[in-house]
């Protein structure tokens, strides 16, 4: 049995978790869940890499205490090495190196996006690999071939906006609140997904890359009129708004599902997994589940707790590197962009 502490500070969230053998989550703490205002007083900025410094100690302590263990019980410490904000990543990396040295525990470096790709396996009673993994969030939209957690190959990624970003920006065009993903999901349920035929950008016919930048302009002009960028929103009825939201959502989901099926055909695999923050979108989940069922493919979506940024997925993937003997040294550095 191997007990791994995971640490994640790649972007907004400060997170720590304790996971046994890569799948049994003993604790999963994300800073926003901890009452830091009470502990520190004052305001903790929502988006600030330096805020990780203030939060991280308390978050790690909380993760260990909720798991009922101490530093000396751990087998290894896993940390997000990238991609993300280098300034933010370095705080997690430095903390992990310090604890690794102080507690004499091995250090493991983990790629944030690859951890998302493996997150749908957390809590399953058997391994879903090999599988095609679709990872969709505000910052990332990627397809991976996961042979097993130590052999992950990127098949494609967005060339401009991530799908989650398109949801947020279209929500803003439609005058909906932030975050836009849940807002669009909600009003789209009353709309007709066939009302407006928004473009499905597929790039080259055999491409597994994505482009979600153009659909913003299409929605903008549909709302305001060709060549106009203001003045149209007030004229739309609630039903028209719901129809636009549903049609936009359907266009994005169609592209995600078609590309995923293209990846299935290309790799010859028979399992599909879904992760990342946008995996919470009901239309995406349901459509992908239905298409997989019709094609007799196995389908697993990550549990909600492991869709958004978290450290359980870092500890889970870190376990496999630890077991394979793939350890990091105290000279570990962060990287900004995924290779």
């Amino acid at each position, binding site marked *: 049995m191997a007990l791994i502490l995971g640490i994640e500070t790649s972007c907004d969230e400060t997170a720590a978790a304790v996971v046994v053998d890569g799948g049994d989550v003993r604790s999963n703490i994300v800073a926003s869940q901890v009452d830091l205002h009470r502990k520190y007083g004052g305001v903790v900025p929502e*988006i*600030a890499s330096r*805020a990780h410094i203030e939060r991280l100690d308390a978050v790690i302590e909380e993760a260990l205490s909720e798991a009922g263990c101490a530093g000396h019980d751990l087998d290894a410490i896993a940390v997000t090495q990238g991609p993300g*904000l280098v300034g933010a990543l370095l705080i997690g990396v430095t903390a992990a190196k310090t604890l690794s040295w102080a507690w004499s525990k091995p250090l493991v470096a983990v790629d944030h996006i690859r951890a998302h790709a493996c997150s749908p396996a957390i809590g399953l009673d058997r391994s879903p690999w090999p599988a095609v993994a679709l990872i969709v*969030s505000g910052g990332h939209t990627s397809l991976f071939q996961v042979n097993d957690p130590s052999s992950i190959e990127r098949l494609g990624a967005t060339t*401009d*906006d*991530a799908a989650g970003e398109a949801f947020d920006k279209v929500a803003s065009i439609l005058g909906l609140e932030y975050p836009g993903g849940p807002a669009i999901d909600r009003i789209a349920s009353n709309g007709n997904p066939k009302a407006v035929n928004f473009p499905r950008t597929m790039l080259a016919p055999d491409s597994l890359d994505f482009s979600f930048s153009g659909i913003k302009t299409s929605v903008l002009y549909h709302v305001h009129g060709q060549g106009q960028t203001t003045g149209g929103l007030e004229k739309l009825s609630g039903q028209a708004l719901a129809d636009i939201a549903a049609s936009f959502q359907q266009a994005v989901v169609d592209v995600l599902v078609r590309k995923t099926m293209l990846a299935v055909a290309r790799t010859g695999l028979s399992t599909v997994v879904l992760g990342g923050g946008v995996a919470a979108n009901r239309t995406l989940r349901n459509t992908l589940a239905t298409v997989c069922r019709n094609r007799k493919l196995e389908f697993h979506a990550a549990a909600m707790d492991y869709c958004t940024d978290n450290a359980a997925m870092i500890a889970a993937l870190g376990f496999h590197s630890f077991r394979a003997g793939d350890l990091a040294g105290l000279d570990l550095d962060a990287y900004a*962009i995924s290779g």
Partner: protein
Amino acid sequence: MTATRHDATWSTASVESTLALGEALGRCLNAELTIGLVGPLGAGKTNLVKGIAAGNAPGMGSSVTSPTFTLIHEYDGRLTLYHVDAYRLRDTAELLALGFDELMRADSVVVVEWADRVRSAMPEDSLWITLALTGPTSRDLTFQAGGPRSQRCLDALQTDDKIQA
């Protein structure tokens, strides 16, 4: 001596011509320059940065993706290109908390999307580019230099014979 300051506007008819303008700008970049991009959703700010990255390092354009969620991207080249996005930031303090000041170095260029939201953090001598939608793929890009450094870059761009204002 004060440099002559004037605006220059380019009209582009297609995504490709916006990319080409960005690429020409990428070839004219001088070190320590800060560029502020202003324009509504869908105006093509990220696309322009793809061009700038390609002009600064051939082939780099395809690596550029939107930093709206990830906040800061970094691209290698003749100069290190920092691609910052203020869309999710509530105020200038949040931008400074990200270490914005530390990005401006003797070997780097910083491009900020939604720079009008963090105007007070932008150096006075910044190159401001306002993008306006004029059709489904056509855009007007108006350049404004805030001081001698940005004026030098704009002058160099205006003498590029492939790109006529």
